[in-house]
């Protein structure tokens, strides 16, 4: 088949990202030609500030070298500006006469800097700040002159000023408004910022309107060069260099000349298509729903959608972006997002420590964050921004929200929670041994923008995830505004699909899908049989939605759940037999001892869940070990019920008020064989001394004289989370019903790999109380669905001992040695 021709005009970050996404989806669909007006291949425009400041070189910020274009068979015209689109003849024409025909045209022409229309704007030494050329010119100018004036106190202007200061110039920032960065900061934060920039040696003239840029007169040694800047109030300052950074305007000249509809940008629909269906546009040049974006993150969202449609997949819409800003001036921590100034129908939560240099303001509407400004301590910027994007209710945490995500037990990185304060050599990811310097290096050298990319390349935060916040901070401070936390509400299950966990669950439920192939077929999975991320999730959603009906696919389970034992680093397994409520007998202990000797078990260990672990067992021995143990599976290997930890309770303990051991046994027996989105741990204590540590369990029960208190959504692992009070009940049966109903709600609604705490944080305790405590009919129904799901399921170990066909998994094929 003849390939279609795709021509792209503009060789910047948004356009090239679109091509990268397109090549991933449909590498062979188009012959692609790229026109770039600059002489460079695609580079990271965001990092021009560090280049100006002398912290990086131009070479460091290249994103795609010429080899990349060659390797992907892209025809590249550098240094050639396209001046005409012939829509009837479907071709574009460049300044030098180069013509290229297209079937699809992609406009990514970016934006142009705004220049003040004042006399002298065309003098030598008056520059904009937009590309490598401008940056080089500024660096040159800093070597010749002493005095720089930056007009514009926005993000770009301040970064330019900081860079020129570091290049040794005497810098004054002139700003029309009364405070800096008025589009991102409120007055308080802006004043704090101004003070710290003044301490770095920058000078400011606020509320000043430039009326003229004055050059040297004829005969002057500086003839035709800038000499000073004059203001409307008559005052004047010396200038050897003037940088205009008052804003950008979408570059629509080419589109307009071709008759495409433009209004504050090239107007596109949600699929990034212009008014000519053969022509698409992405990046700073477009106007989408009346908005133009100058930050990289939204442009990447556009790129993804556009590529999907160019690839003829026809899925996905761009629906606009909420953006956040971060200033890339070393030593200054500043974060701003959304509607930070608020209005009559919003409230503010503020923490202001002027001496300590910390200011945090969140703007809240109907219990949801709609915007915020952080200055001095931006540790929790990503967290607030995530809640803003997810529209999460903050009602329950508003009394401590400004103190940050947590101060508790976040282990594995030396108690650090501020990336900026960490040295390059400090370890960020304690699981994979990745230090801060390695992460920064990977981000800049490999041009990474998202958390997923950083995880892939460095492995940091890819194991237990406890350092995710730190990695996000490092990413945000390295790439600045380009970083955008992913929107977890619209995040697809994995790269195999565009659907979210919730959408997948809904389809399984409403369409009564009963197998993984059926789900993949119905939801048009992009891959033939998924991947190691989506298949286990789908398998869980199927068996939890349609118990006894859906197919449980062992090949879509992680090895531990397929082998019903825990794989160890050397490929052997560990076996943990169940001891109901942590209670055992001399006979069981004897059998365990005999097994340990018979199979030469290298380590026998008491677990934290009140039972015994036999480590280092060969896979082929597992069925025989289970047979000899003759004890139930402990499910220590599954996203499933693990243990119910108990204290001694009223039977022996002199303080015990309730029979906690029996309650633990009954709960554990009720939940036996329960698969869940992630592991589930319970505890029952017989009195408020709480020796079973019920406060950090998914369900923790505490006996009191008058009944039982039930706590939920605690966690003792990666990040210690204290369980929250659900309710108090009087009877033994009520404990089973309420606990069971809570866990069933979790099983039905949480995303795969959510612990109870993650799910409850998202939906809120109020939601849980409504469904489990307040609504008795619903509670009963949940409880009955749980009991139905668990009824009649056999112990997986005994099943494999009894049925030889289920043992094949454990049997190696032995090849006889060939004759020599």
């Amino acid at each position, binding site marked *: 088949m003849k390939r279609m021709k795709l021509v792209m005009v503009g060789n910047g970050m948004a356009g090239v990202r679109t091509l990268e996404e397109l090549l991933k989806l449909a590498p062979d669909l188009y012959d692609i030609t790229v026109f770039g007006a600059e002489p460079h291949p695609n580079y990271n425009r965001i990092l021009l500030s560090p280049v100006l400041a002398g912290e990086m070189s131009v070479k460091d910020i290249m994103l795609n070298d010429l080899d990349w274009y060659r390797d992907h068979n892209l025809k590249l015209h550098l240094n050639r500006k396209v001046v005409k689109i012939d829509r009837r003849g479907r071709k574009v024409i460049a300044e030098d006469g180069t013509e290229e025909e297209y079937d699809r045209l992609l406009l990514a022409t970016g934006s142009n800097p705004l220049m003040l229309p004042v006399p002298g704007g065309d003098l030598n030494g008056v520059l904009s700040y937009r590309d490598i050329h401008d940056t080089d010119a500024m660096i040159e100018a800093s070597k010749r002159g002493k005095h720089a004036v930056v007009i514009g106190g926005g993000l770009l202007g301040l970064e330019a000023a900081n860079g020129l200061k570091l290049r040794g110039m005497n810098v004054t920032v002139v700003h029309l408004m009364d405070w800096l960065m008025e589009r991102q900061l409120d007055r308080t934060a802006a004043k704090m910022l101004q003070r710290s920039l003044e301490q770095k040696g920058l000078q400011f003239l606020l509320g000043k309107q430039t009326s003229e840029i004055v050059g040297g007169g004829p005969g002057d040694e500086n003839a035709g060069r800038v000499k000073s800047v004059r203001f409307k109030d008559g005052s004047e300052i010396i200038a050897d260099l003037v940088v205009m950074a008052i804003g950008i305007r979408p570059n629509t000249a080419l589109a307009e000349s071709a008759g495409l509809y433009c209004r504050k940008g090239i107007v596109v629909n949600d699929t990034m298509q212009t008014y000519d269906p053969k022509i698409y546009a992405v990046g700073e040049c477009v106007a989408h729903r009346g908005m133009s974006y100058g930050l990289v993150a939204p442009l990447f969202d556009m790129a993804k959608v556009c590529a999907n449609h160019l690839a003829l997949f026809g899925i996905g819409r761009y629906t606009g972006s909420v953006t956040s800003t971060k200033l890339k001036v070393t030593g200054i921590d500043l974060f701003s997002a959304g509607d930070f100034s608020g209005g009559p129908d919003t409230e503010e939560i503020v923490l202001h420590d002027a001496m300590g240099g910390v200011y945090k303001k969140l703007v809240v509407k109907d219990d949801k964050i709609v915007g915020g400004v952080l200055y001095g301590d931006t540790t929790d910027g990503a967290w607030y921004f995530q809640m803003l994007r997810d529209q999460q209710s903050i009602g329950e945490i508003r009394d401590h929200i400004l103190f940050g995500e947590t101060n508790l037990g976040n282990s594995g990185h030396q108690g650090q929670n501020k990336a900026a304060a960490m040295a390059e050599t400090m370890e960020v990811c304690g699981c994979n041994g990745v230090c801060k310097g390695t992460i920064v290096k990977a981000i800049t050298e490999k041009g990474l923008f998202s958390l997923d990319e950083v995880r892939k390349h460095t492995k940091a935060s890819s194991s237990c995830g406890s350092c995710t916040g730190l990695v996000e901070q490092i990413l945000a401070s390295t790439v600045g505004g380009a970083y955008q936390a992913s929107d977890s509400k619209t995040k697809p299950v994995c790269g195999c699909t565009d659907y979210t966990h919730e959408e997948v669950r809904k389809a399984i439920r409403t369409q009564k899908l009963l197998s993984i192939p059926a789900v993949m077929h119905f939801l048009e999975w992009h*891959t*033939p049989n998924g991947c190691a991320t989506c298949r286990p999730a789908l398998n869980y959603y199927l068996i939890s939605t349609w118990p006894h009906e859906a197919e449980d696919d062992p090949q879509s389970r992680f090895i531990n759940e397929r082998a019903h034992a825990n794989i160890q680093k050397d490929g052997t397994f560990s076996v943990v037999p169940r001891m109901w409520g942590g209670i055992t007998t001399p006979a069981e202990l004897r059998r365990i001892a005999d097994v340990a000797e018979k199979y030469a078990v290298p380590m026998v260990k008491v677990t934290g869940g009140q039972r015994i672990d036999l480590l280092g067992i060969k896979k082929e021995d597992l069925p025989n070990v289970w047979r000899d143990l003759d004890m139930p599976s402990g499910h220590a290997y599954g996203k499933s019920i693990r243990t119910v930890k108990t204290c001694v309770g009223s039977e022996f303990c002199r303080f015990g008020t309730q029979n906690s051991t029996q309650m633990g046994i009954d709960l554990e027996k009720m939940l036996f064989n329960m698969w869940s989105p992630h592991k589930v741990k319970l505890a029952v204590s017989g009195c408020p001394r709480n020796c079973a540590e019920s406060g950090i369990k998914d369900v923790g029960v505490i006996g009191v004289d008058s009944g039982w208190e039930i706590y939920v959504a605690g966690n003792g692992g990666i990040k210690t989370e204290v369980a929250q009070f659900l309710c108090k009940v009087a009877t033994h049966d009520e404990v089973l019903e309420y606990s069971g109903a809570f866990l069933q709600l979790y099983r039905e609604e949480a995303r795969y790999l959510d612990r109870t705490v993650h799910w409850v944080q998202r939906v809120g305790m109020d939601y849980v109380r409504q469904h489990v405590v307040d609504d008795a009919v619903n509670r009963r129904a949940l409880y009955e669905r749980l009991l139905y799901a668990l009824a009649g399921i056999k112990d997986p170990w005994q099943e494999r001992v009894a049925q030889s066909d289920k043992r094949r998994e454990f049997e190696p094929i032995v090849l006889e040695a060939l004759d020599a």
Partner: protein
Amino acid sequence: MMSEWQKVCEVEDIPRLGSRVVRRAQGDVAVFRNAADEVFALEDRCPHKGGPLSQGIVYGRHVTCPLHSWKICLDDGNASAPDEGRAERYTVKVEGGVVFMQS
């Protein structure tokens, strides 16, 4: 030395989208079967930390190592970028539903 084809097992002995371990004096080999009933054989050691690839989840033409989720290509044993490394690949063929491996 002449290489010889050695019978391993029936295709049906390997679960679809799964694998079996072939035990040999020189070290274990993992034989995989994908959804299209193609059979592949790799050294049963992940190039990362030696994890048993036979225990991973199989999809498309890849297997994910059960220890740290490296993705290994079944065709050539190469780790997917950005990871680097290779598991030894063995030549296999299927004739009349029987899997043979070149020794």
